[in-house]
């Protein structure tokens, strides 16, 4: 299997093409739906199995990266841009997450979207997403990665606006695409700069160039910052995070797959993949850590007060991504990927659990209108609870391990760790535990706040959904024992620890565990007993509550500072003043003047055709005579 990697990428594309072209037309009936489902779920599973096979081969090859060149996209001036795929330890982890969690979410979707009239279109888009995501993680060069990068943005756009008849949902899709494009402009600049100064876009060669004896003649930090701008778009970091909460307009499995488990981690993958640059870019790394910490903190504060079940999870995702960037910023690349992995498990489980809740409640998303669901949908409850405990950092679940390592390196790494960074990250962790248990409590415990109508219809989801939840809950429980940083260490070494801080490690673990349980206790204390204490607290700080509930009014600020001035400039200055007054006005004025002065000349325009013909002929003759005379 020389082209196994290409095949992994192409499998979902086949699903997209078949489902897109054939099934949308013939997929209305039961047989058609079965065909769509088999194709849409079967191909990602096949890609997953093929990835496992590739991993086995990678191991047999002594972890020498596998390379598979599909074709040459362009050859210019003797230098070629190749469509090639690259498989090493890091790719293996990412591809397994994408195809594995991706397959699970496809299966879940078969139940969740069963009643939707655009069933085939949904799966076509989902397969398209997988195709681009696999391009992104398997691409050898930044060019292929960028194709995937923009492509997942497209799939995300299509899926956020899946129910496009609702203008708000269509607008959310557009917003996601545009905000991502802002990041992409930075990405492009970084890519061009690399190509100009290093002479290649192959990421393994770029890393090698920066690790070589003579560094490329370009500031690693400049490249690093430009590429990181791209990462802030795709991975929803300050200042470009604003699209992700709105992206929850899409179907819930999409939020789980794209906006939690896979696509949004692309920025983390990018930085880890190009660690060769960031290792030589202390300024860029400090920026990555700083932005990550700030995002982790602020997003967590917003999540404290949100009441839409998906919005809480969305801000939680933004916050968790921030923690991953903290890890990247202090040089713990393998740890960041570890958190990507555990986060994929528990956040996918949480979103799909939320989907199951929404499914059971006939579309209700407001946690203030839930409560007491634990007994009514027990499988959803148990799996959701496990995932909540995992993200909160309760040992020995998955999140505890990965988050603890991030906190440790944010404190002790010799590459920019600091007490301040650790404090901010710990505060974010504490809040995470609080808002997640708050969410769990308001949804599943206490008295029911549902309307009678909704309560009557509450039902547990079908096996295709609960089965997936169970698998993801299991992974969320035991995923921490994977020891991924160790697996990745040969290519992504862990940063050195400041020796003087070594003995603090146990203390920090203790604090992390204490924070997780403090969050749990605080949530139960405030929201137990009818949430009276929470209401009292809210009453004492109405301004702070309003500020958080309004998400710091960042959207409004952007609208006021960016959107409106741009429209004003385009409409008033460019179109009305520039085009209409200055340019057309001048031309029309000239024309009017010409018409007046030409009035005197127009007397020769008698309307006599014979005269015109005679004049024309005379002109031709004159020209011919002149020509003849000069030969």
């Amino acid at each position, binding site marked *: 299997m020389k082209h196994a990697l290409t095949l992994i990428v192409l499998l979902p594309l086949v699903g997209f093409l078949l489902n897109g072209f054939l099934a949308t037309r013939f997929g209305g009936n039961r047989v058609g739906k079965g065909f769509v489902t088999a194709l849409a779920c079967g191909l990602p599973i096949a890609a997953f199995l093929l990835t496992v096979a590739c991993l086995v081969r990678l191991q047999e090859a002594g972890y020498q990266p596998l390379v598979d060149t599909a*074709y*040459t*996209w*362009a*050859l*210019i*001036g003797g230098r070629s841009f190749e469509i090639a795929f690259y498989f090493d330890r890091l790719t293996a982890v990412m591809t397994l997450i994408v195809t594995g969690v991706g397959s699970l979410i496809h299966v879940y979707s078969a139940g969740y979207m069963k009643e939707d009239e655009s069933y085939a279109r949904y799966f076509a888009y989902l397969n398209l997403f997988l195709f681009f995501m696999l391009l992104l993680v398997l691409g050898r060069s930044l*060019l292929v990665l*960028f*194709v995937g990068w*923009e*492509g997942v943005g*497209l799939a995300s*756009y299509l899926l956020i*606006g899946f129910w*496009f*008849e*609702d*203008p708000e949902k*269509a*607008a959310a*899709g*557009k917003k996601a*695409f*545009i905000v991502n*494009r*802002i990041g*992409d*402009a930075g990405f*492009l*600049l970084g890519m*061009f*700069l690399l*190509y*100009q*100064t290093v002479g290649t876009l192959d990421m393994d060669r770029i890393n090698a160039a920066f690790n070589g004896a003579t560094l490329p003649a370009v500031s690693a930090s400049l490249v690093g910052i430009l590429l990181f701008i791209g990462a802030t778009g795709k991975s929803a970091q300050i200042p470009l995070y604003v699209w992700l909460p709105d992206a929850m307009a899409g179907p819930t499995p999409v939020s789980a797959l794209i906006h939690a488990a896979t696509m949004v981690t692309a920025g983390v993958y990018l930085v880890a993949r190009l660690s060769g640059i960031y290792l030589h870019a202390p300024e860029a790394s400090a920026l990555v850590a700083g932005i990550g910490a700030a995002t982790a903190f602020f997003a967590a504060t917003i999540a404290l007060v949100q009441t839409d079940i998906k919005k809480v999870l969305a801000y939680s995702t933004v916050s968790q991504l921030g923690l991953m960037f903290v890890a990247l910023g202090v040089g713990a690349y393998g740890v960041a990927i570890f958190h990507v992995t555990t986060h994929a498990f528990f956040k996918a489980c949480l979103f799909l659990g939320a989907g199951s809740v929404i499914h059971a409640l006939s579309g209700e998303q407001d946690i203030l209108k839930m409560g007491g669901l634990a007994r009514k949908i027990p499988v959803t409850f148990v799996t959701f609870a496990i995932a909540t405990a995992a993200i909160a950092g309760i040992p020995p679940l998955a999140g505890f391990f990965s988050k603890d390592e991030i906190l440790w390196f944010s404190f002790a790494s010799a590459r920019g760790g600091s007490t301040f960074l650790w404090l901010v990250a710990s505060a974010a962790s504490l809040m995470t535990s609080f808002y997640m248990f708050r969410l769990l409590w308001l949804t599943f415990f206490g008295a029911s706040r549902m309307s009678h109508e909704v309560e009557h219809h509450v039902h547990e989801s079908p096996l295709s959904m609960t089965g997936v939840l169970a698998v993801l809950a299991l992974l969320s429980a035991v995923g921490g024992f994977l020891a991924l940083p160790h697996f990745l260490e040969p290519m992504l070494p862990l940063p050195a620890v400041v020796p003087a801080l070594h003995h603090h490690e146990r203390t920090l673990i203790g604090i992390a565990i204490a924070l997780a349980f403090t969050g749990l206790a605080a949530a139960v204390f405030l929201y137990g007993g009818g949430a009276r204490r929470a209401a009292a607290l809210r009453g004492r700080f109405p301004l702070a509550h309003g500020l958080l509930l309004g998400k710091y009014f960042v959207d409004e600020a952007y609208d006021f500072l960016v959107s409106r001035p*741009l*429209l004003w*400039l*385009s*409409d008033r200055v*460019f*179109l009305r003043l*520039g*085009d209409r007054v*200055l*340019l*057309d006005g001048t*031309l029309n004025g000239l*024309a009017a003047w010409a018409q007046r002065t030409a009035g005197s000349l127009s007397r020769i325009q008698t309307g006599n055709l014979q005269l015109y013909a005679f004049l024309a002929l005379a002109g031709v003759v004159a020209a011919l005579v002149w*020509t003849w005379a*000069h*030969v």
Partner: protein
Amino acid sequence: MFDAALLNIVVYLPLGGIALLLAAPAGQDAFVRRLTLGLMTLQLALVAWLYLRFDPTVAGLQFETRLPWIASWGVHYQIGLDGYNVLLVLMTAFLGPLVVAGAFTAIRKDVKLFYSMVLLIQFAMLGTFVAQDLFLFYVFWETMLIPMFLMIGIWGGERRIYATIKFFLYTAFGSILMLAAVIYLVLSLQSTTGITSFAFADLYRSQLPLDVQCILLAAFGLSFAIKVPMVPLHTWLPDAHVEAPTAGSVILAGVLLKMGTYGFMKLGFPLFPDATLAFTPAIMFLAVVSIVYGACVALVQTDIKKIIAYSSISHLGYVMLGLVSLNLYGIQGAVIQMVSHGLTAAGLFLMVGMIYERCHTRELADYGGLAKLLPVYSVFFAILTLASIGLPTTSGFTGEFLVLLGAFGAAWQQYELGSTLPLALASVAVSGVVLGALYMLWFAQRFLFGAAKAPHQPFGDLDLRERAILGIIVAAVFVLGLFPDEPMRKTELAAKQFQQLVGTSRTGVRAAGEPGRGPAASENGAPRFARAGTGSAP
């Protein structure tokens, strides 16, 4: 020899077609349509054959015809294919049948005359691309103007007279300047070298002092810049598009605008390399202004045709940016971007025509949720929109990516030599990708999504003819996005020649401290160097 004859046949086939059409009996509209479509398809087949036979390893002209025409003036009838025009000729022939088929139902008035005009303009456009003699080029160039003028004037919308006069004034103004410059150029070639010739190849060897080059480039450049069009010479374009029938818009956006950029590439820059270098920052500035300005104004249009018209200004800005970068990636990208814009703009204008035939309005506010009403239409529209904003895997990406890569690379080199402006401009151009996505996606959102509404419902989705037209365009868009290598090999030698021509000084005075920019590069440069060195410009 056979192929050279074939190229002539390709060019004159439309003229033969006109004769056939005029001979056809009146009232046979269906026959006229099919005949024109057949001719255009035949032409495409012949061009495709030539394209396949075109040898990418040969620099210079292929399938050349060179016959004396007006011997006393040194005018030759000289045509041929080279890397500069081969893709544009293919694109023009490719769009021909689509334009004809696209107008099947839209044009019901004076059908015979209409298709004669389409054929005439096809003839003139192909002639302009293949001409290798400035006199011949100018004749074809002027010929293009008339059928376009008539097409808008006869089959246009309500304000067609204003639009045609504006179109005519702008382009005629440019043409007159160019004519004066052509005469001056040929006379000066004659006086400095003793050669009387209009052949491009000879003119490339002219030696002119910098100030003369600047004036001539300004004259040629104005004419070309009006055609492109570059801001601030663009205001004729939205009016012409809005009033033109669909076929007119498709030809205008698809091919005619490329005459401007092709003119710069084939004539303007290589004829006056030193002036080009002197003007580079200004041209680059105007290119970037066009990118941003066109995108911004497209953002606030309410007429769907105007949105696409302004988007053309923005997209052609990228072409100019790529050309002026003088970087191989940028030049190759510019050529691909020309073709890509030809495909996507043609497709989008055809689609505007299709919806207009159904609903008789172009007001964006009258539409919404077409994805529900016209699902097939919407899929095509979405694909072309995405190609237009340069999404990877589409032709738009290939063009934009390479242009920006080249522009940035050139600007970075300038930056390392101490000049910041090009880098700043290139960075602004890269940010242009955001604006492009902004106006097109906002357009698509209001047009395709939201609650379903349209002035006349219910109406049918695309029929087989329309699907075939768009399907062919979309296929080409993906081929150029996924496999641009093959076409780019055919243009690479020309791109290198362009780079070398513009990079070689021809003021006749050896520039001190600039190795490699002396006139010695041309084979018989030395005697001309001596003669021109006396400063004997006429």
